[in-house]
């Protein structure tokens, strides 16, 4: 009797998992295709949607953030961010974008940039760079079949200062 009950429970659980999994996929699909929320936990719907939603759009521009440090003689010199993003270019660009623009809100971006600049100042000093301040700018420029940085120059380059942090 005990074994029978266990078997029935096991089979019930198996079919509950199957139905739940199908509902999980359907909820993700409905959001993906029709922007319709099914009566299913929102976080799970978003997770399922996330698996169906790679590469929905493309960028018309290339972008990057650049950091400069104020040296003791009063000049601004570029700081290489490469050591902080030792990953392939696409991932590095996405990470930089997300670090600044976690929300599509200009003020939020500036707050993030301040936080990143402060941390960068602290880290650069730890690496032995005697700098008095850090400033962070966001750059964007059009794409070109000739190369990623081909049009990263005037008059195509747009640069926006996001934050300056002094010691």
């Amino acid at each position: 009797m005990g074994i029978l009950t266990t078997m029935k429970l096991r089979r019930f659980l198996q079919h509950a998992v199957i139905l739940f999994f199908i509902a999980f996929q359907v909820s993700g699909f409905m959001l993906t295709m029709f922007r319709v929320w099914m009566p299913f936990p929102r976080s799970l719907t978003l997770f399922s949607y996330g698996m169906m939603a790679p590469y929905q759009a493309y960028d018309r521009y290339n972008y990057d953030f650049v950091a400069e440090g104020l040296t003791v003689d009063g000049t601004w010199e570029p700081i290489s961010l490469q050591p902080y993003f030792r990953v392939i270019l696409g991932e590095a660009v996405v990470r930089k974008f997300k670090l600044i623009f976690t929300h599509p809100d200009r003020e939020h971006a500036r707050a993030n940039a301040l936080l990143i600049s402060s941390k960068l100042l602290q880290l650069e000093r730890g690496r032995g760079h005697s700098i008095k301040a850090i400033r962070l700018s966001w750059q964007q420029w059009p794409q070109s079949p000739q190369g990623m940085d081909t049009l990263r120059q005037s008059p195509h380059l747009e640069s926006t200062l996001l934050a300056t942090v002094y010691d």
Partner: protein
Amino acid sequence: MTKSFFYRWDRWWTRKDLPHILAIFRIAFGSFLLLEALTYVQAVPTLFSSQGLVFSIWADAFPMTIRSLFEPPSVAVAWLIFSFYCLCSVTLALGIAMRTSLFSLLLLFLYYWQLSFHDFPSSYHRLFFTVLLILLFSGADKTFSLHMRLRRGSFFAFEEISILPQRLLALQITATYIGVASQKIWLPDWQTGEVLIASFSGKWATPWGFVLTRTFSPAVFEFLNWIVRLGEFFLPFCLWNREWRWKAIIAGTLFHVSVAVFMSIWWFLVLPPAYVLFFDPREVHSWLSHHLPIIKKR
């Protein structure tokens, strides 16, 4: 009729069957996780420790006493955690302490998400998390494993397992392909070949991608866009179809290799090995035992 439907439904989803397909997938997936982790070796100090531009998104939600668990650790601790992740990937592939490895990997996925990968959210990491969760409840270590070597004396010994995890994984892959392809019918950016031109000359483009955009006219990319959309949509249906399966495997592999070569988005290369999940376990076992007679012995 109804009884027959339920019988077939039940049998298709939950019958006991041979474990070789899930074991092959376990080995491939564990190896892939290790490979992916190794691409981050250089980045461990700056992506996963306090020596980088790393900000936890969960730490503030916890009381002070346990907050430090979520905050960026020292470089030494980051290396320890990273090494443990690699070890778990190896033990998963080898099929020893599989459940412990999978459970640890799930926790580590969450840890790395809140620490670093929230800045690089990706479909494939969600897919990997789902795979880990399904494998946790599977018998993927019931052959081709050190577990069976220790328990039954042979790496090739096997026991029947529930086919349910194999079906769930195959369904997930199917749903991912169908979802990804279907929305491209209406997504504004996928209506012309411009999306491919931009993709092959943007942040993801490899030098080979740039060569493509310089070499071919927009009409070629228009045509390629149709191929991609139709191919992605029909691929999962063909994977389920016995007659079309091998053609779909070749097409899917070519597609994902092309994406990796021209756009450096290589993580979806985990999918071609996963196509094995669409085969019948007995068919694969029969093929394996024909080529590796040792597999016939239990």
